[in-house]
Each structure stands twice: as C-alpha cells, then as structure tokens.
C-alpha cells in the first residue's frame, strides 16, 4: 500500500542519484524478463485466475510486448500497482511498461515525463449506484458519499463535475478496486465513480449485478493506454508499434491461429508486418518475427477485447468507440510502411 509508494519514491531518489537513463531494450534482453506494471485487481483488465496467473486485457498487452521483445509471452514480471504508485514505480525503473488502464493527459505526458504508446481503450468516467437508491441520473447525486480511487484523473473530474453543477458530495478516498468494492457493496458510499469499463468490471464481480446500476452520464474523456518513461525513444517506439501491430492485425484479419501461416500473404503490408518482406524489424531493433510472435501469443486487438471484456464475457462491454475505424470506431493504427 502506502509503504510501497514510499519505497518506490525512495528508490526513485536513489536511482536519480546514481544512474542515468539506460537502454531499456538492452536491459530487458539481458535480464530476460519484461517488467510490467498492472492493476492490483480489476476483473477483465488485470486479475489473477484460479492458478494464480495474471489474466486480462491489460495483461495481454504486457504479454504481447514480451513476445515481441523476448520471443516468450510468459517472460513477464508483473508488478501490481495502485493508482497512486504507478507513475513513481515507472519513473523509478521498478517497471519498464505500465499497462494499467491509465488515462492519457497533457500533464502526465509532459510534466510527469511519461510517453504514452497509444490508446487501447476509449473510455469515459461514469457513476455506479445501488439500484435500491432510486437515483436515475448523476445530477441527482447532491449530498452523496462518493467512493473514489486516489491518484487518478477521475478524482479531479469528480471535483470539477460537482463544482460545475454546484452540488455537494463527500469524497471517500480508497486505494484499490478491492477497497472500493468493500465500501461500496456495504453501502458505506452511495456512489462509486471510475472509468465506465472499470465500473462494468466491478459490477460483474458482484454476486447480484442487477442490484447495481451504472448511470447514463459520461462526465469525461478517458483515453486509456500503455505508457513508458520519457527519455528512451527506442523503447517507446517498441511499445507504440506493438500496440499498432495488434490493431493492424485485426484490420488485416490476422488472428492467433492463422498468423503463422500468413507470412506469404499477397498483402504487402501483412508481409512487412510479419517480417517476410522489408527491414521494418531492424528499425526498432527487434527480430523480424516480433509482430508475428506478439499476435501468436495473444491474438489481435479484437480477439483480446472479446476474450476478456467483450459482450460474451461477464463484463459484457460493447465495442462501441473501441471498434476498428473501418467499423465506425476510433481504433486506428498508422500504416506499417
């Protein structure tokens, strides 16, 4: 908890006092594992299964990067981080990639010195209430006790929303989604506010999901994506293009099952992506099969989405904004050329 954040802060000081930016790619290859920061537990995005292995939408991104860089999707060392710890841990080198439903904002990009690799989920902040409370709209929440994860953009949006609408509220700060569930399910707070994807995941983990209701209002833009530290452009490029490879794979119809046999496709972009044509891999310092390995390990973007958070899972999220641009969504990758 807090201790972890303090230790990370001290580590950062120590690290700042001793070393300068190293080449993350070389370090990762030398150690043979990818250090990836994930959520402390959010069903669908990052959660341990019965066998204790981390699973989820955000976890699969870590696996894809590990497959691309090291050729082995299991060569990942996961560090569960709270909203408050995550940036310090990344800056201190405790993790090299942060894949933890993190909102891309101006100040995080510039002032906190992070580099966002892209957007893998277009989200917005919503409110969840107990259906028994009879509340139908976020504008009826004046006077409510609101559970809120500290160290998040939602915390700031919440303050702005209630202030702009001249309503009172009582913020109940919590550190992790697990604490939020304890407080919200026991009705120690009337409302739980978070990204709507997170609310859907929390709702799905309740024994009676129908007793909870997500209110219709969306009060913010929350573009979520993986990120790395400022200062190592090669590593940032790898993070960005692994994500783009997964998106392009969906666009081109490459799946977990067929990717290994698509190397001789007629589509030049597929050939460039899979390394059977051109020199793209050498530009970012990876093996020619990097994208093929990533896709073979976790599937394309659509497969990852449907497997962990799609309509056929307990969380049941529609693709919505997160459909490919060719299907009217916002998910779009620059070309592999």
């Amino acid at each position: 908890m807090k201790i972890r954040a303090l230790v990370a802060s001290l580590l950062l000081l120590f690290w700042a006092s001793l070393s300068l930016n190293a080449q993350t790619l070389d370090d990762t290859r030398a150690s043979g594992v990818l250090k990836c920061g994930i959520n402390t537990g959010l069903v669908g995005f990052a959660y341990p299964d019965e066998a204790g292995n981390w699973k989820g939408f955000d976890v699969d991104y870590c696996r894809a990067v590990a497959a691309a860089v090291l050729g082995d999707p299991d060569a990942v060392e996961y560090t569960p981080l709270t909203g408050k710890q995550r940036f310090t841990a990344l800056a201190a080198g405790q993790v090299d990639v942060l894949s933890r439903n993190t909102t891309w904002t101006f100040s995080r990009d510039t002032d906190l010195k992070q580099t966002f690799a892209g957007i893998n989920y277009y989200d917005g902040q919503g409110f969840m209430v107990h259906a028994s409370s009879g509340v139908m709209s976020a504008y009826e929440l004046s006077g409510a006790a609101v559970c809120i994860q500290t160290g998040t953009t939602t915390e700031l949006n919440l303050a702005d929303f209630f202030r702009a609408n001249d309503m009172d509220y009582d913020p109940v700060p919590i550190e992790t989604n697990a604490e939020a569930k304890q407080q919200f399910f026991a009705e120690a707070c009337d409302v739980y506010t978070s990204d709507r994807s997170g609310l859907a995941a929390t709702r799905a983990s309740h024994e009676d999901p129908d007793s909870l209701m997500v209110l219709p209002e969306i009060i913010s833009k929350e573009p979520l994506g993986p990120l790395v530290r400022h200062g190592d452009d090669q590593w940032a490029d790898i993070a960005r293009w692994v994500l783009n490879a997964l998106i392009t794979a969906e666009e081109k119809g490459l799946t977990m099952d067929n990717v290994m046999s698509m190397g001789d496709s007629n589509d030049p972009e597929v050939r460039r992506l899979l390394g059977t044509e051109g020199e793209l891999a050498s530009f970012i310092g990876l093996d020619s099969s990097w994208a093929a390995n990533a896709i073979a390990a976790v599937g394309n973007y659509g497969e990852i989405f449907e497997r962990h958070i799609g309509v056929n899972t307990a969380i049941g999220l529609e693709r919505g904004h997160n459909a490919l641009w060719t299907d009217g969504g916002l998910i779009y990758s620059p070309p592999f050329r």
Partner: protein
Amino acid sequence: MLLNDSRYRSTTIQVVVVIGLMLFFAWLINNTLNNLASLGKGVSLSFLNAPASYDINQRLIEYTSRSTHLRASVVGLLNTLLVAALGCALATVMGVIIGILRLSTNWVVSRLMAVYVEVFRNVPILLWIVFFMAVLIETLPKPAAFRGENPEASLFLWDSVAITNRGWYVPEPLFSRGLGDLDVGGLFYLSMDLFALVAVFVAGLMASARLVRRAQRIQETTGVRPVTWYWRVLLIAGPTLALLFILGFHLRLPELKGFNFTNGIYMRNSLVALWLALSCYTAAFIAEIVRAGIQAVSKGQTEASYSLGLRPRLTMNLIILPQALRVIIPPLISQYLNLTKNSSLAIAIGYMDITGTLGGITLNQTGRELECILLLMIVYLCISLSVSSVMNWYNSKVKLKEK
C-alpha cells in the same frame, strides 16, 4: 608522524571522517539535482501554489478544490494533529486504567488486562487499523436502514447520536446569539464564541487555583484547611454556563436528509477507526509503562507512608505517583511520538492526513516526489520535536529535584 601522536590522532581521524562524510553528501545531493535536471525535473516548490483540484472530505479549515496544494497540505496537517491529539488523550486514559488494573489483586481482572496488552502489542498496528475499519463498515447499519416507517436501525441517546457504517453523527453545538467569526489574516476563521468560552473557562481555572493556594496557606499557618470545593465549582462552571446562556447555546441534532445524515458533527469512519486503533494499540504499551512505573517504587515507601499515618489515597497521591511519574514520563514521550508517526498509516483506510494529501494525492498529481517527500519528512520532524520538547519540559517539572 601525526598518527603516532595520541594527542592529535583522534582529532585528525575525526576531522578526516567529517570531511569525508560532507563530501559524500555533497556528491549525493549534487548528483541527485543533476540527474533530476537531466530528466527535466528541476527541484522547485512552485507547484505548492497551483490549484490542488481535488477535494478533501475532512477539513478543519476552509478548503475547496480550487485551493492551493499548500493549503491542501495544511488541511492534511491539521487532520494529522487532530487524530494524534485525540489518540494521545485516549491512549493515556486507557493505558493508565489498564496499567493499574493489571496490578489488581483480582485474578480475573489482572489476567484480562494481561491478555489485552499481549493481543494488542503483538499484532502490527496496520492490521489493527484495517481491522477496525472493516468492522465499522461491515457491522454498523447503513444510512438507508434508518429510513422508512419501521426502520431497522434507530438513533441513540434520545435520537441525538446516529451511528452508521459511514461514520458517527453527534449533536453540533450552535449559538443563536453568536459573536461571529474572526478572519485571521485570510488563512482561517477563528470562532469568537469558542475563543470567549475557552478564555472564560481558563480564567475560572486560574481563579480556582488561587483559591487552592490560599487554602494551602491557611492550612500551613493554622493547621485547618478551609472547605473550598463549592467555591471552586462555582468559579469554574458559573461564568462558563452564564456565557453559554448569553450566547444562546443549543444543540442541533443530526437528521436523515437525502443520501446521508446532515447537520451535527460528522466523525468519519476513517477518523474513528484510526483513532480507536491507534489508541488501543498505544494503550497496551502505556499500560506496561504505567505498571513498570508503579512497581519501580519500592514497597518500603508505602510502608513508611502508612507508618506515618497517611491513608492509602494520600499515600498514592503524595508518595507513590510522584515517584512513579518520574519513571513513567520519559518512555511515555516515545509512545506519544510513535502514535503521531503511526498516524501516517491513515492512508490505508483513506483518512486524509498529511501523508494522504501532500505525500499522496499532491505527490501523485504533480509528480514532485523529491519535494513532497522531503517536505513530509520535515513536517513530521517538526511535529515530533515539538511533542518531545513539550514533554521534556513536563518531565523536568516532575523529575526528582536533587538539592
């Protein structure tokens, strides 16, 4: 050779070590600043003047999300001081009672107290804090349970105290003919009513102390102590009650409105859980200190006192306690310091102390780890030094005066 000269050797070595240490720290600091600068993160405190943009639920002074990070830190600091003061007070009361009961000749009582001490001091404080919080959240009724024709839960003490799983609501003192608030340099508002009440109460206490000294003087010259207790009660309570009446004192009871109870003083779960956990935990240590202090006074003192004809109560007050306090106070100081520092675990249950504001949300939202952690260290250092200097002053008042 200087090294062979014992007069210079130790001085030389000390000088070399000190210079070496200073060079090491200078290198460390210089390197830190350089590396932070190369990360594009120069050390600066200007972020403290930017709007904090987040809300704090428990605030003892005026604060909104538009206030600065500095003010958010002060709000957190006051919350730290509040829980530390409440905790020290309750821990002392509990500790003294348990410590004395542990010495009881009643077997059951002394065993029970021993169990209390062992259970509380052998489990980490963080677990106690989380445990108390979980108990409060899971076992107490939610506000909705107070609603409806036949509510499942009801208020306590003639409908004046509401105990819910969000916190405790107690009646709020109000003044219908109040004196208003005094604006102190735009920083915070001082309630003039409270100020006047404290002033009158303290004046009453001082007058009563004069009366006691006068009684002492008369006893020393004539041997007869005049009965003064009713005068003292009148001096202390009279003016205070009169002022309360003049100001139009009344209580406003909590009532269920909308989602929550409104009105009344709201003690959040997080405050209550932290307060109780810190107090119960520290009380276990204080109990042992009190027991040790009393047992440190040799039995001969009691017997000598009895043989002089002093009754047990006087023996306790005049002979044993003054000597026991001498032993009790120095370790008690450490316990107060421990309690204050342990209050930084508040963040585990979302109590917004200074670790939660300056060292938590502010640090996180501004990304100023170095500055925030250093400021936080300085703040705790100042609090601890103040507590220990006050307690050391008290210690020097009660310690054995050797003539």
